[in-house]
C-alpha cells in the first residue's frame, strides 16, 4: 500500500515553497522506487512551519498523521533517508499537529477540515462529515432551518456582526420578486468573498482548504430562504482560491449537491462564481450587488435593505464566507452546541488571523472571550523583529489602532465596540516600535481616497483633505489648529458618509492620534 503524504496547496504555503517541496518529494520517491500518494491539502494555519508535510502512518489508534516542517526542497532527501514515510526521527519532525499547543488550544469548528481534506475531492469531503448539515436542513421546513440559525446566535462574520438568522428570516418572509427582464420570481443567495481587509485571510484559507463547506452553507441558506440562484463574489487578488472554488463548484454539480435537484430533494439551487476587479469598496454589500449587476461598484443608500430589494431588486441574502461556512456544523450538531461556545452576545467561534510583525502568524479559531494579549504573545509569540509590540490594528484598514494598555481586551463584539474599536473580520496586525503612527493615519486617509466609490462627499473629498491635513501636521506650523480641524473632519466623515468606508476611516486616524499623539507632535 502506498504511503499518503500531505503537502498544502494553500497560497501562503505555496509562497513559502510548498510546490517545490511537493515536486521534490515526488521526484525522490520515484528515484527510490517508493509508491506514495501525494495529497494536496489546505493549510493547517501554522505559517512558521510551512511548508508543512504530513505523513499518514499506522498507529494502534488507527491511521494518524506525523508532521514535519518547515520542509524545504533541500530537506527532502534527508527526510527520506531518516524514514519519514514511517514517522522517523528528524530535526524537522514535529509529531502530531493536534498535539501542538498552538493548535490543541483552538476550537476548530469552521476550520475542522482545512488542512486535513483534499479540498477539491467531493468524496473526501463526504468522508469527513460533509453534507450532513445540508441533509438535515433539507429534511426540515425552511422556517425551522432559519430558527436553528437564529438560536445558534451566529452573527455576520464579515465585520458588521448582524444576526445571520434574522437576516435569513427577512428574506424568507419577503415574497420572491419578478423583474421585467424575464418575469421569473426569484430570490438570491450571495457570498461576499471580497476579503479586502489587510491582515485577513481566513476566507481565502477556507475557500482554498475546504470550499465544499462554503458551498454547503450556501445551499442550506438557499433552502432556508427559498432562493434558487447563488453567486460567490470573489476578489481578483485570490487566483488560488478561484481555482479551488471552480473545481469544487464543478464537483458539487457532478455529485448532485448543486443544480436542479439538490441532494435528491427536488429543490433547485444554481451557483456561479463571479470575480471582482480590485475595488475594495465592493466588499460593502450594496456596492458588491451593483458590481454583480455589471456596474461601477457604487454604494446604494439603505433602505431598502438587500434582504428585501437586493440583487436585481430581488430579496437577497448577502453573507460573508465564514458566516456561510459556520452553518453546516450548526445544522449538523444543533444550535445549542454552537451557542455553548463564546461569551455574552458573541456566540460560537471566530477564526482570528495573526498577521504582521509576529513570530507565529497564522489562523487561530477560538471561541469568543480570548484576550488580545493571549493571541499576541501566547499564540503569536511576540514580535518577529524581537522589538516591543507598539500598536495593533484589529479589523482591517478601518479598524482602530490599539496600544499596549488595551491588550487585555477580550475578543467580543461588544467589548470592542465599547472602546470605539471593532473586531471586523478578525484580522490582527501587529506593529513593533519602528512604526510611525502619523504615517499609518495618513495611509488610512490615502487608502480611503483611493478606494472611495465617489458617491458621497464626506468620503470622496474628506479623505483627500485628510491626507493634506496630516501632511501639514507633519510639516509643522499651526499644529494645534490643524489637529482640531482633523478631528472635526473625522466627525463629518463618521456621521456623514453613506457606508463604512468613509464612516470608519476616522477610527484608525483618531485612535492613532489618541494613543500615539507623540508621533503627531514630532518635527519632520
Amino acid at each position: 500500500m502506498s504511503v499518503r503524504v500531505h503537502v498544502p496547496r494553500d497560497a501562503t504555503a505555496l509562497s513559502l515553497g510548498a510546490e517545490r517541496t511537493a515536486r521534490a518529494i515526488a521526484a525522490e520517491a520515484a528515484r527510490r522506487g517508493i509508491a506514495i500518494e501525494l495529497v494536496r491539502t489546505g493549510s493547517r494555519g501554522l505559517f512558521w512551519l510551512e511548508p508543512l508535510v504530513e505523513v499518514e502512518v499506522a498507529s494502534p489508534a488507527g491511521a494518524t498523521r506525523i508532521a514535519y516542517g518547515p520542509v524545504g526542497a533541500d530537506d527532502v532527501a534527508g527526510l527520506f533517508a531518516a524514514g519519514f514515510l514511517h514517522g522517523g526521527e528528524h530535526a524537522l519532525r514535529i509529531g502530531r499537529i493536534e498535539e501542538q499547543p498552538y493548535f490543541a488550544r483552538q476550537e476548530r469548528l469552521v476550520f475542522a477540515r482545512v488542512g486535513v481534506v483534499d479540498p477539491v475531492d467531493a468524496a473526501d469531503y463526504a468522508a469527513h462529515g460533509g453534507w450532513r448539515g445540508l441533509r438535515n436542513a433539507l429534511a426540515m421546513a425552511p422556517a425551522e432551518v432559519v430558527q436553528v440559525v437564529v438560536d445558534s446566535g451566529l452573527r455576520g462574520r464579515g465585520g458588521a456582526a448582524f444576526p445571520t438568522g434574522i437576516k435569513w428570516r427577512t428574506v424568507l418572509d419577503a415574497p420572491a420578486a419578478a423583474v421585467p427582464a424575464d418575469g421569473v420570481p426569484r430570490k438570491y443567495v450571495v457570498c461576499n468573498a471580497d476579503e479586502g481587509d489587510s491582515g485577513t485571510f481566513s476566507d481565502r484559507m477556507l475557500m482554498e482548504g475546504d470550499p465544499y463547506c462554503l458551498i454547503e452553507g450556501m445551499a442550506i441558506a438557499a433552502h432556508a430562504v427559498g432562493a434558487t440562484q447563488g453567486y460567490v463574489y470573489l476578489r481578483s487578488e485570490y487566483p488560488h482560491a478561484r481555482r479551488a472554488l471552480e473545481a469544487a463548484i464543478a464537483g458539487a454539480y457532478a455529485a448532485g449537491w448543486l443544480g436542479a435537484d439538490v441532494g435528491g430533494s427536488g429543490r433547485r439551487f444554481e451557483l456561479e462564481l463571479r470575480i471582482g476587479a480590485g475595488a475594495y469598496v465592493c466588499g460593502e454589500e450594496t456596492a458588491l450587488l451593483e458590481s454583480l449587476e455589471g456596474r461601477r461598484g457604487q454604494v446604494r443608500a439603505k433602505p431598502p435593505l438587500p434582504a428585501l430589494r437586493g440583487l436585481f431588486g430581488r430579496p437577497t441574502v448577502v453573507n460573508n464566507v465564514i458566516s456561510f461556512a459556520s452553518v453546516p456544523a450548526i445544522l449538523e450538531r444543533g444550535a445549542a452546541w454552537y451557542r455553548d461556545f463564546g461569551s455574552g452576545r458573541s456566540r460560537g467561534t471566530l477564526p482570528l488571523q495573526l498577521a504582521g510583525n509576529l513570530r507565529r502568524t497564522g489562523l487561530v479559531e477560538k471561541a469568543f472571550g480570548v484576550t488580545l494579549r493571549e493571541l499576541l504573545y501566547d499564540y503569536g509569540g511576540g514580535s518577529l523583529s524581537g522589538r516591543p509590540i507598539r500598536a495593533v490594528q484589529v479589523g482591517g484598514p478601518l479598524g482602530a489602532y490599539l496600544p499596549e494598555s488595551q491588550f487585555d481586551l477580550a475578543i467580543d463584539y461588544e467589548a470592542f465596540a465599547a472602546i470605539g474599536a471593532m473586531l471586523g473580520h478578525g484580522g490582527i496586525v501587529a506593529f513593533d516600535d519602528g512604526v510611525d503612527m502619523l504615517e499609518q493615519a495618513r495611509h488610512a486617509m490615502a487608502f480611503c481616497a483611493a478606494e472611495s466609490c465617489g458617491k458621497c462627499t464626506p468620503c470622496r473629498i474628506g479623505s483627500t483633505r485628510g491626507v493634506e491635513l496630516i501632511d501639514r501636521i507633519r510639516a509643522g506650523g499651526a499644529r494645534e489648529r490643524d489637529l482640531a480641524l482633523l478631528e472635526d473632519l473625522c466627525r463629518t466623515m463618521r456621521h456623514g458618509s453613506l457606508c463604512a468606508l468613509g464612516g470608519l476611516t476616522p477610527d484608525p486616524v483618531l485612535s492613532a492620534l489618541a494613543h500615539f499623539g507623540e508621533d503627531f507632535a514630532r518635527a519632520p
Partner: protein
Amino acid sequence: MAVEPIPLKAPRPRDPAAGAAPDVLAAVDAALDANRAREGALLPVLHAIQDRLGWLPPETVALVAHGLNLSRADVHGTISFYPHFRTHAPGRRIVRLCRAEACQALGARELEAHARRVLGIDFGRTSADGAVTLEAAYCLGNCGCGPAVLVDDDELHARVTPAAFDAIVRDAREALR
C-alpha cells in the same frame, strides 16, 4: 400628397468593429458568446477579454457596448472604476506588490521604494524593456508572511526582501530570452 418627413439629424451608428484589430475582435466575440446569457454580464465579459489579451484595448468599449446593448459611457465608466482593468498593454510579467498594513508592518514601504527605484517606474507603469509591469495591490491575503508579491496571478512570494525582489525581476527578464 404625402409629405416626405424631414429626417432628424441622426447619423448612422458607427460600425463598432471599424478599425479594430482582428485579435481584439476575436477576443471580444468569444467573450460575448461565452457570457452574453449571464445576468449582469459586463464584468465577466471584460474579464474574459483581459484574460486573453492582457488588457482592454480602446476599441473594446464600443464593441462591448454594442454587444451587450449598453451605452459606451456605461462600459467606459465601469472599466475606469475598477483598478484591475488595464487600459494600457502590460509588460510580459505583471508584478503586484502589496502595499497594505500587514505588509507595511514588515517593511513594505521600503520594498516599495526599492521597487520603484530599481525599475525606474511608478505603479501602473511598465519597465522600459517591456519586461515588468509594476502594480499595487491592497492585500494579497498573505498577511502572515509579508511583504508579499504576486507575479502573473500565479506565483505568490512571501517575506520579499529587496534582494528577493531583484531576483523576481531578474527571472522575469530572463524568461523573455
